[in-house]
């Protein structure tokens, strides 16, 4: 199954990108990503610019600065992985170096092919 691991961090606690603390963390992220690749679970992964660089779009072309809602934790990056089940995804999420100042939300990726195939048999013929 494919999962998106959404990395949420509290900007007040997380070290700023490029700061010495953040740089000191890079080896941990690198070895995490390396382990993910070696296991064959890695699909994609990126870090995001902070919320101060975010833009939100709403209906009717309304564009605003910042995130869509005020929350303490902001999305800071993600991994897309392919693992057998939720327990495996939880095990990877539990190894994230960012857990000291945030959380990881695990979302299964919607499988459109399976959903299309879920139409009852014979429905196409009717």
């Amino acid at each position, binding site marked *: 199954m494919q999962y998106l691991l959404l990395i949420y961090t509290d900007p007040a606690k997380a070290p700023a990108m490029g700061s010495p603390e953040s740089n000191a963390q890079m080896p941990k992220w690198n070895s995490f990503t390396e382990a993910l690749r070696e296991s064959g679970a890695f699909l994609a992964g990126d870090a995001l610019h902070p919320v101060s660089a975010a833009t939100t779009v709403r209906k009717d072309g309304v564009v605003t600065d910042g995130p869509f809602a005020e929350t303490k934790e902001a999305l800071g990056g993600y991994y897309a992985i392919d693992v*057998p*089940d*939720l*327990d495996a995804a939880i095990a990877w999420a539990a190894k994230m170096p960012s857990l000291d100042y945030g959380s990881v939300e695990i979302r299964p990726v919607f499988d459109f092919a399976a959903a299309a*195939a*879920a*139409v009852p048999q014979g429905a196409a013929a009717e």
Partner: protein
Amino acid sequence: MTADARAALERTFRDEWARVLAGLARHVGVGVAEEATADAFAQAADAWPRDGVPRNPAAWLAVAARRRAIDRLRRERSQVARADALAALPVPAAEEPGSMPDDRLELLFTCCHPALSEEAQVALTLRAVGGLETAQVARAFLVTEPAMAQRLVRAKHKIEAAGIPFRMPDGDELPGRLHTVLHVLYLVFNEGYEATAGDALGRPDLAAEAIRLSRLLAVLMPDEPEALGLLALMLLTDARAPGRTDADGAFVGLAEQDRTRWDRALAGEGNHVLRRAIGLRNAGPFQLQAMIASLHVLAPSFERTDWNQIAELYGLLAQAQPSPVIEINRAAALTLAGACGRARQLIDPLLADPRLRSYVPLHATDAELHRLAGDAGAAREAYDRAIAASANAVQRSELARRRAAI
């Protein structure tokens, strides 16, 4: 014949529902397995009175449930491969009664997966493992049947969509996951023992169901001290249930209970299970609580209860899981043991805690300590605070009686 068939069906339902469902869930997931197992029992209710009870009812049901699962899966194009895989598996041997695999532990742990909400864990455990009808689960938790059905559908959908696996957690995962399972069973028992809402004091069916599930867990995990500890706690608590209400159904406090009404057989079994747990030499919160319950059961009277030992056990419990409620119980036990100075030391910081301002037992213990110290004025004031905080009429009148007796 029909009566025989009905009795056989009821017996098989009680004994084999979870095993049939679990065996199927391993292959098709909890959702489809639950629906197919219900189908199979409905089919048995139809067929057995007509054709006679099969030689191995459990195997008959396993085969029927599998057929119904295959039918259900084939209706969806995306599930056809799964249906074919299931159809290709060897049929459970109907001839040897002991030959059916036992996947009930995996089922219990899946229903209690931490990715499900506590509400969903409880509902799913009662439905899938306990075999309760949706309407029964709804009644037990005082929600409407459609609301409970919705809760169960959502839980089953989450298992499927999120990819919650049907497996036993191992290694480092097991202690935490076992804790969740024990907590769910404890919640069910508590809801049965001390209904959080409703008119009656408790809902015995739910307590009995929790005990039945805990017995099953104790059989499946015979070397888990906390699983045995939980079962012992339930048995030793339930043993005292007949004394908790008087002839009119009104609540009777521990001090006033007629101890001859306690269920000695249940208490004996509870103590036996507790000894087995302690013998495994790995104490935990449920065992400590069971030890406290055991001391109550063994005491000849309220006054001649070993309050020192109970206070000691509450102290250990507070170390294992710090909580102001446990500290208050410990202070109350110390008060009854005559150690008023130590009780006062525990109580004073708690009285300053704003979260406990309306916690009745805290003020009742505070009042009793003042009374024993000879400060009638402070005792009455503390009882006033306890009475003002109480939402229960029976409790209020009891507190008022004690206040008047100062």
